């Protein structure tokens, strides 16, 4: 227990942790603040304004149309050719319809908590995950390369316990941050929605679904932090984790994309990691194959392939277990120089 508390303290004392925390909070605050300005509450006045504007445009379109028809008919009466200028039948078929001027197109953007907050959960989770990755990697990476790990092992010569305790301290910290910041994040957007947007239709079911989104986001931040930690411990250097992350990203998002395109693999994106991240947050990711479209037969109905969040859980779970087991295995086996 004392070791766990020590490691929590050590993590909190680190400059990287403090700096990244400041950046994280500033970043999230900036997003929330900037977003609050882009949303505007649809008060009756605003709605009336939009309706008036729509009606106005409709009326002026009607006026234009009537004048054109009248001009055309006058020209026809003079025996002139009108086809080219006014279209067939003097354009009488193109009378403006009221549904071409719907009031909602004239409304300013209004944030809809129910429909749009899940996306902001993903933004939040991605930010905290990045924080967890960097802090987790440097927490153990710096220990390895400054000899701190060796010093600690002279005190607690149980390698797996020491590494495990460090990981536990990291995950506890990331967990606490995700919960606290997540609550603030939700409160902030609830406030934005209340003041400048809409909180309509927030049933218990919707809250439950948002809660589940939050849980998956929490899982993602913990997973990314643990993987960063494990990679840095494997390579015994912070840079190893960052390098591995860049490598995995390049291979998955660029290399595999090119490869499947060249090989003509159907639904090639199912081999790309970001598809699984997407489906993890949005419960599923749909892939389309537009090559199967038969445009001659009307609207296109492309073949689809669905990646579910359960599949994502398997993929990420395997990655997590692989990295962590490898890290502990080498911790047990390798000499500490």
């Amino acid at each position, binding site marked *: 227990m004392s070791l766990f*508390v020590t490691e929590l303290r*050590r993590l909190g004392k680190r400059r990287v942790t403090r700096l990244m925390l400041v950046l994280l909070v500033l970043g999230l605050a900036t997003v929330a603040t900037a977003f609050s300005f882009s949303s505007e509450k649809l008060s009756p006045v605003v709605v009336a304004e939009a309706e008036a504007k729509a009606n106005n445009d409709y009326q002026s379109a009607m006026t234009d149309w009537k004048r054109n028809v009248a001009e055309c008919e006058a020209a026809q009466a003079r025996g002139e050719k009108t086809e080219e200028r006014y279209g067939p039948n003097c354009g009488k078929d193109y009378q403006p319809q009221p549904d071409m001027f719907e009031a909602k197109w004239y409304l300013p953007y209004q944030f809809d908590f129910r429909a749009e907050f899940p996306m902001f959960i993903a933004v939040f989770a991605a930010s905290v995950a990045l924080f967890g990755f960097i802090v987790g990697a440097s927490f153990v990476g710096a220990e390895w390369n400054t000899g701190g790990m060796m010093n600690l092992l002279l*005190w607690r*010569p149980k390698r797996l316990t020491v590494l495990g305790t460090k990981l536990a301290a990291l995950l506890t910290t990331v967990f606490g941050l995700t919960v606290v910041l997540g609550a603030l994040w939700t409160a902030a957007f609830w406030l934005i929605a209340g003041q400048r947007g809409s909180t309509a239709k927030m049933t218990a079911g919707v809250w439950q679904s948002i809660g589940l989104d939050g849980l998956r986001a929490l899982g993602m931040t913990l997973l990314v932090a643990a993987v960063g930690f494990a990679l840095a411990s494997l390579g015994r250097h912070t840079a190893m984790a960052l390098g591995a992350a860049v490598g995995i990203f390049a291979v998955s998002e660029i290399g595999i994309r090119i490869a499947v395109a060249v090989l003509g693999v159907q639904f090639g994106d199912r081999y790309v990691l970001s598809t699984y991240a997407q489906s993890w947050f949005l419960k599923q990711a749909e892939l389309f194959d537009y090559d199967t479209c038969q445009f001659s037969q009307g609207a296109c109905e492309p073949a689809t392939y669905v990646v579910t969040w359960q599949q994502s859980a398997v993929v990420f779970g395997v990655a997590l277990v692989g990295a962590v087991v490898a890290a502990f295995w080498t911790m047990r086996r390798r000499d500490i120089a």
Partner: protein
Amino acid sequence: MSAVLEIEGLRKTYRSRKRGVRHALDGFDMRVEAGQVHGFLGPNGSGKTTTLRTLLGLIKPNGGRMAILGQELPHALPAVAGQVGAIVESPQFFPHFSARDTLGLLAQAGELPKQRVDEVLELVGLRDRAGERVKTYSLGMKQRLAVASALLKNPKLLILDEPANGLDPGGIREMRGLMRELSEAGMTVVLSSHILGEIQLICDSVTIISLGRRVAFGPVDQVLAAHSQGAVRVRLEAVDDLPQAADALSRAGVGVTAEPDHLMLSGVDKPATVSRLLAEQGLYVSELTPVAVDLESVFLELTATAPVPGQHRQVDQSAKVDQTGTAGGWGA
């Protein structure tokens, strides 16, 4: 006396695909009695640090037996770790933490009271600078911090790998005093160092290692005696007779080194035999003195690392002893 530290037949082999196999420790033996200050000597790359790392569980040995305070290692390491304070070859500390934070975190991990941190900081002379980041410390200050971290637990066995590295003369003398105090208080100290004058002053006993094997061990005066016994300086009345004397002595199996105006003999049991041998040749001895050697010359002789004019000795060029050669007594 009971042994605080026992090592028997310890082996550590490094394998690399490119450079092949390196026996860093090749059947190494060591024994340190309770309450002693024990010097651990050897040329660069002879395996001192490897021995200490293995002992502390940082490296897995390929064979052999180790015990600390009567408990078998590495099995019992977690149990004895609280009684062993160690620094291994200029330890590094996290550069952005202060000395007080660094020691505070260690003390907390080891469940020690907070005031112990201030005690050891005082002891190593870092009290007034303890709040500064380790990054800003000089080499000797870092070394003092390292010693402080080893002392923190108030251990029964203190293992210091080159603690004097980077210390100023005052610091070295202070360290000497500290070692003596600690050992008087009942602490057993194992000290690896290249400053042999220092070792000779501080240590009760020594182990000398060369190429991963023990070449000599025992109380300092006995190791010295074992190697000064045979050393004798001989002067003759006539300098011209020196070559003849050298010839006669080496035929009798005595090691002879010719100097301009005298001979240095080694491996002489009784100086009287020398005078008898020379008298038989009609040579008259004007001086026959047993030479007191210091630890440095014994070390250089035992490890065969004395510099030879015109040659640049490479690391790993040192005495290699047979496994059986070290079995008994001190002095190979």
